[in-house]
Structure formats: structure tokens, C-alpha cells
């Protein structure tokens, strides 16, 4: 089901402490190694893009995320593809990333901790975090753009680039515009069923 974002976004923050047990908070990479941190030096913003290898709508956004990464990574924005579904194992996602020529960093969120922290439930859905003072603060959560209004209701091309506008605003220190509509895509598969 689609989640309709209500009036206010809940802004969450969590510690950036990356020592000890906290490392497992960020899931594993495609080689099965824990991802100890989502940032590198000089990272100003972290963008998580939640995806599913078998979701056609999330796959259609691969070129758009590559475009945004090309535009913003020189400005201190770090993009991560996050695969939270149980079926998206390291080998499945590795093959998927090769097929789609995905060059951005990828994390497998097998425990769906990032899902809970970002409070997303659809793929594709994006979350933007400010990196400040050792913690991540969520600035934006929601759709990438307005191409899909619902499944089956699709614009020929997007007219509003919500994620791009949020990143621009965050980098400029301006108020973050809220997404003008809900994210549309495939439900993230709940664990334990």
C-alpha cells in the first residue's frame, strides 16, 4: 500500500557513533561486510534511496539517481542505494547492480533498521539526512519526483523534482520543501512473514 504522507514530517535523528555494535546499524555491503559508516570526510548530506531489485518503478529511477549523484556528489552529497527486502540478497543485488550499471554505494538493509530509522515503506523512496555534530538528522523523506501519482497514473515526464529541490535547499541552508505527493512504488516486504 502507498503511504500518504501527512501534513508534518517527523524528523528523526540518530547517533553517528560508529564504534562497536553500532556498526551493524548500517547493514552490509555486497561482499557481506558490515558497513561501518554512511559518510566519508566532507560529507554534508547523506541520501538513502530505498529500492527493490524486482520493483519496476524503483528500477526506472536508476538513471535519475545517477543523474542526481553526478550533480551533487562533488558538493558533499553521498548517495546510497538501500535494498531492504528479504529476497534481495547480496548475490541478487550484485547481479542487479551490474545489469543496471549502478555505480553508487549500496547497502543491504536485511534487518530493515534503515527502513525504521528513515520511516519509509515504499520502493523507491528517498530520505535525506544532514550530517552535523556526529549525528544524522532526517531533513526529507518521500518521493523522488512527481512522475508517478499512483500505480497506473504516470506522467510522460516529471514536472516537479522533489528530491532534487530538497537537496538544493539543504545545501543552501534554506527550509526544506515537503514532497508535494506520496511516494509511489512497491511496498517494502515486512520481515518475519
Amino acid at each position: 500500500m502507498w503511504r500518504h504522507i501527512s501534513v508534518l514530517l517527523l524528523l528523526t535523528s540518530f547517533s553517528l557513533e560508529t564504534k562497536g555494535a553500532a556498526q551493524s546499524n548500517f547493514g552490509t555491503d555486497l561482499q557481506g561486510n558490515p558497513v561501518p559508516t554512511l559518510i566519508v570526510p566532507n560529507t554534508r548530506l547523506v541520501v538513502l534511496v530505498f529500492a527493490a531489485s524486482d520493483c519496476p518503478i524503483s528500477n526506472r529511477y536508476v538513471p535519475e539517481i545517477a543523474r542526481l549523484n553526478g550533480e551533487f556528489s562533488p558538493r558533499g552529497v553521498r548517495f546510497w542505494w538501500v535494498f531492504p527486502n528479504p529476497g534481495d540478497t547480496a548475490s541478487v543485488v550484485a547481479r542487479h547492480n551490474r545489469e543496471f550499471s549502478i555505480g553508487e554505494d549500496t547497502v543491504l538493509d536485511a534487518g530493515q533498521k534503515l527502513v525504521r530509522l528513515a520511516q519509509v515503506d515504499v520502493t523507491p523512496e528517498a530520505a535525506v539526512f544532514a550530517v552535523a555534530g556526529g549525528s544524522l538528522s532526517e531533513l526529507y523523506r518521500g518521493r523522488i519526483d512527481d512522475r508517478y501519482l499512483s500505480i497506473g497514473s504516470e506522467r510522460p515526464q516529471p514536472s516537479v523534482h522533489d528530491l532534487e529541490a530538497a537537496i538544493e535547499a539543504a545545501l543552501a541552508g534554506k527550509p526544506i520543501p515537503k514532497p508535494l505527493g506520496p511516494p509511489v512504488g512497491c511496498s517494502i516486504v515486512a520481515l518475519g512473514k
Partner: protein
Amino acid sequence: MKLLRAIAVAPALGALLFVLTHAPETVVHAIAVPAAGVAAFRAAQADSAATQPASKSSDAPPTWSRDIAPILYGHCTACHHPDGAGPFSLLTYDDARRWGPQVLTVTQSRFMPPWLPEPGYGDFADVRRLSDHDRDLIQLWVGARMPEGDPPAAPAPPHYDNGWVMGKPDLILKFARAWTLPAGGTDVYRNFILPYPLAQTHYIRAMEIRPGAPQIVHHANITIDRSAAMRRQNAATWQNGIPGMDEYVDAGDTFDPDSHFLFWKPDTPALVEPEGMPWRLDPGNDLILNMHLKPSGKPETIDAEVGLYFTSAPPTKQPMLVALERDDQLDIPAGDANFVIEDSLTLPVDVEVLGVYPHAHYLGHDLKGWAILPSGEKKWLVWIRDWDIDRQSIYRYRGPILLPKGTVLHMRYSYDNSAANVHNPHSPPVRVRAGNRSEDEMGHLWLQLLPVNAPAGGPDPRLLLEEAWMRNRVRKTPDDSISLYNLAAALAGEGKYVEAVADFEHILRLSPNDERTLTALGVALDGEGEWRRAEQSFRAAIAADASACYARFDLASLELRHQEWKNAEADFRAQQVACPEDAETHADLGTTLADEGRNDESAQEFRRALALDGNNVAALIGLGTIETEEGENSEAVMQLAAAVRLAPSSSDAHTALARAYAQAGNVTDALAELRTASHLKPEDPELHSALAQVLASTGNVQEAIAEQRAALKLLEDDPDGWNNLGVLEERTGQKASARADFEHALQLKPDHTQAKANLARLGSIN
């Protein structure tokens, strides 16, 4: 003989004259999902509904095994199976659970299964719309957290073979080269050309398309380009495909209107035509696949294959595609949320409507088509409340809809060019007019019509449909030269030459040097009997365009028919210099030379014609006739027997073969051929006379007399005929009659030597 250069309107996605067609399947089921299998799923479902009335109640929620699997197998998995056209599989319980929430959403919104027509407004075959009962079951099942139920109770999943579902095709056409669809961006509409490589005509009973990347290809419209016009216009680039949503192709030079919806969509890989209604491919034809491609996020290789299944049986039914449209009024202001166009067309003949293809681009909203019968009864053809180009389709009726002559067909389309239309390709909205790019608009209601109850001996009812259709277009756009041309061509085809000439002249007032129209005008003038003016028109066409090969050919043929052999010879030879070598010109030049008694040169031309086209009937008859005259009987019989095989309804071929047989002393076969020739052409007195002679030589004098009388009934003023009749009657002892016959001959021709001698002989016998 070259016929009128009628441009048939090649319908299709588009428009007239030059169009891209589409033509969909006929038998939809029985392809991907075995029909029996579907029936079994439905039966299982019905049983479960009957025996489990509590399935909706809260204490017995629907289960996948009992309730949901039959729905998915019956409506979804034809596309949603591994490597199928759907983006994911729904074959197993795990699949269903994975996608259950999406299945609920899209079935509630009726986005899936894709089916746009409103129920109750057209009785269609292969309806994909999900019943309310099935939608409710899905809702209850997802609400109950998608229980599996008892797995052994589930029906066996259907089996899908991603190979050719109808077995190995008789011919497989492939792309000249694969094309790569970019990873992202807007949807792509692209035309891929597949030349038909065979040297023989074939009738196609079924076609199968394997798109190569099934999840990417949304649909494909297939047009037959009879003259390979698009390939020639894009000679340097066609191998890579040609962008565009609606393309126009020249429909060629004879009246050969498009007849079939050749429309492919993912769940119907095989388009099987009804019995008696195959379509046709001739040497030199191209198939154009207009494909709607949706970028997937990664570059995709598009490399489709088309499989063709032949039948040796030619069509016994000739349907025709006809469109209502109002493109001339499509000028939609920016922001207008309810722009309406309407069109209507009165049927000139009784028809059966077999299928419908509503077509608009992204702004189309509410699409209606209906018919008002002469009785006043209204019959709905289709109603789509919320058009979506992504889910467009052909719709075939469950049974043909009979519409009598005088029925008025109607269409009423509305367009939404406001920002609220999510499909609007422009943000903000801009003024939009008709055009073939996806961001332009169109408003067409294509119908597949099968003329019925046509009176014997009348004109081809498709010509009457064409005439009515083109008159309607000319009424809307009086100076549209394509409609005028097609109208004139239809009129000429019906033998209404005077009106045809007037319409061709109308075009020439708009574009005086149009070679094609000048040529067609010449043909119509010739039909009207104005052969000198026809000659002038052909010459004007040649002056307008030195490579006017049809005009050159038609001019020389006209001269040949009017026994201007020197001019005909000169103009055939000029045509040979100016135009690509063709068998027909050699054959007709051969006929010209034969008429002048120049048998050696003539035979040379016929042989050249046959080297180019071994099936050229005129050359076979011409050469066979010369060989007969020169006593080469066995060669003559061989050529002429071949002509008869190729053109069994040509009385000339049978007659020439009869002569060859007779000269070879084979009276039995000569008689058989003459009888066939006379049966084909009963109004030809010479054939009756010839029959009388051959019959007399076999001793069958009574029958010979009957034939000779038949000849004289058709040609009373034939002194030879009366003389011959007298001879035959004298042989049966009817002396008085014989005397009268000889006297009749002498009355017509007082110096008829044989009649005189016969009369004298009769006197001496007395």
C-alpha cells in the same frame, strides 16, 4: 495491366492515405494460457464460490489455494510469469504474497488487468476486466494477511513456453539490426521495418511476435507498407528504426484497402485470423512495427522477431478498415479540460462490424463510438471513460454487429489539456494540434467492417465504403488532396468516370503538375472514352516528371489498344529507357510487335519478359501464340498450359491453348479448353463459332449447330457465320434452313464466294 493508381487508404493509427496500421489478434485465448486450463481455473473458482458461500465471511477468509490462484491464473499470469511481459511473476504463493498489496491496489483502481471499455457498451470477446466478485476476494484476502490455505487444493499452475506458441512459423522476419532503448527518459515510439523477402505472394492466417524484451514493449501496431515507401524515404537510416507514433505510408497503386487490425499486445502473442479471412503479403511489401517502448532503468536491446503462418486458401471474405476522425478540428487550447470533437459517417452498404480500435494520444479522455440504425435503434460500439494510451488495444466483438445500409456511425471524443491531466506531456499545458508525434494529438475511431448482402454483379462494396468515407473527409476538408484522390480513385473503380475526372481536375487546380494525379486522370479519361484527352494527360504527367513510369506505360498501352502500333512501340521503348526494366513493358511491346506481324522481334520481347517474371501471363500467351503460328506445337502447348495454370480465369489463355491443341490434332483437349473459354466469356461470338467448328469436326453436328446459332445471336451480321450454319444444317438434312442461311449470308455480303458456291451446290443436289 496496370490499374488505376488508386491510393487505398491504409488505415492504421492514423490517418488516411498513408498510414500505419495496427491490427490485432483475433483469437486471443488459447495462446499463452491453454484455453482448457483457463476453463478449469474458472470452473474451480465457480465451484468454490458455490460450495463455499462463507468464503467472504470473517470466519473463513479467502485463501490463495482456493480463491486467489484461480483469479491470478485466469487473469494475470499470461503476462506475469517468469520472463513474461509483466514486470514480475504471480505464479506461486510466494509471488502472490510478495505482490499482494500491489495486486490489491491495481485491481481496486482497475489499472489491472488492463481493460478500458466500459461494460455494457459493446459486447467484446476476450474481456479482461475483473469481476466485482474477484476484486472483493482479493481485497478480503489481502486484508486477512494473505493466507495460503491448503496448497494441494490449488489448481496446477499454467505452463508458459516463451518459444513460438503456435509452433515453428513458415517464415520468420527479423530486425535488420538490434536497437538499444536508452535506460531512462520518456516512452519511445519507434518504427522498425521488416522487408518481406519472398518472391511469391502468401496469405497469412496467423502472426506471432516475439518482441525480444517483452517487459519493455508495451504494444506494437503493424502496418503493411505495400510499396516499401517508408524504407525508400529513409534509405540511409531505416535499419535503426524511425521515430514517430503514427506514420503514413503510401497505400500503393491499386485499390487494396487495409483489412485487418494487426495489433500486438503482450498477453496475445499470436494473432490468429478467422477462417476465410487471411491477409496477404506480396513480393516487395514491408511490415512496419510501430512499437511503444517503456524505458526500464537500464539500456534494453530491442530485437523483435515476427513469425508468419501461411495458408494456401485465399480469403473468402474481404473486410475493410474505415475510420471516423476529426483531426482537422484538433486545435486544443492550453488549459481546456473538455475539448470535444465529433464525426459521423453514413454506411452505403450493409456491414458487419468485427472490431474497433479507438485511438488518441495523451490528452484523450472520454472516447465514445456508437451507431444509429435506420430504425432509430442505437447500438454502442465502445465507450472508454478514462482513456489511457498505455493500455490501448483493439477490441473484437464477441459476434459480428450487423449494421444495415443507411446506419450512421458516430464518434465523440473529449480531450483534457489541463494541468490536471496527469498524462499531459506539456507542463505547463500548451496549445496542441493534430500530428504524429506523441505530444501531438489524434482522434480516430477505426472499425473493421465486413460488407455483407452485396448484390451480385454490383461494384466491390469496399469501393462504396471508400467513396462514402472519402466524401465525408472531403466534406470536412474540401481541399485535402489525399481524400480527393482516394475519392476519385474509388469513383473510377466503380466506373463513375465523369465524377472521377472532376475530382482529379480539382486536385490539379491545387497542384497542376502532380504527376500521379495527371496519370490517374488519364486512366479515368480513358475509362470515360476520352482517349485522346487521356493521351494528353499521360503526356503531361511525363512532362511533369520524366520518370513517370506508370504514365509512360499507360500511354503506350493506350496506343496499343487503339492500334497505333508505331507510337506504342516508340513509347514502350521510351519507357524501357526511362524506367527500371519490367516484365509488363516487355510483354506489351511484344504484343505490339506481334500485331505488326514482326514475330521474331515480338518473341524476343516475350522471352525477355519471361526471364524477368516467369509467371507473366501476357508473355506466355504471346509467345505460345507465335509458336502455334510457326508450328512449334509442343513448345506452344507448354507455354499456354502454364498460362492457363497461372490464370485459370483468363479466357484468352484457354482459347490460345485450344488453338495449339487443335493444331497439334488434339481435338479432345481443344474442345475442353474452348468450352472453358466460352464458359468464362459467354458473350464472345467467336468462341461459339470456334466451338461449332471443333464440334463439327468430331461429328457432333447438332451441338455444333446450337453453338453456331448462339454465335449468330450475339453477332447477327456475320456472313461467315450464316454460311457455316448453312453447311451444318445441310449436313443434317435441313435443306430449307440451309438455303435460307446461305441467302442470308449473301444478303449481308453479295460476293461471298463460299456462300454462292454452297447455294449452287444445294441447288444441284435438289
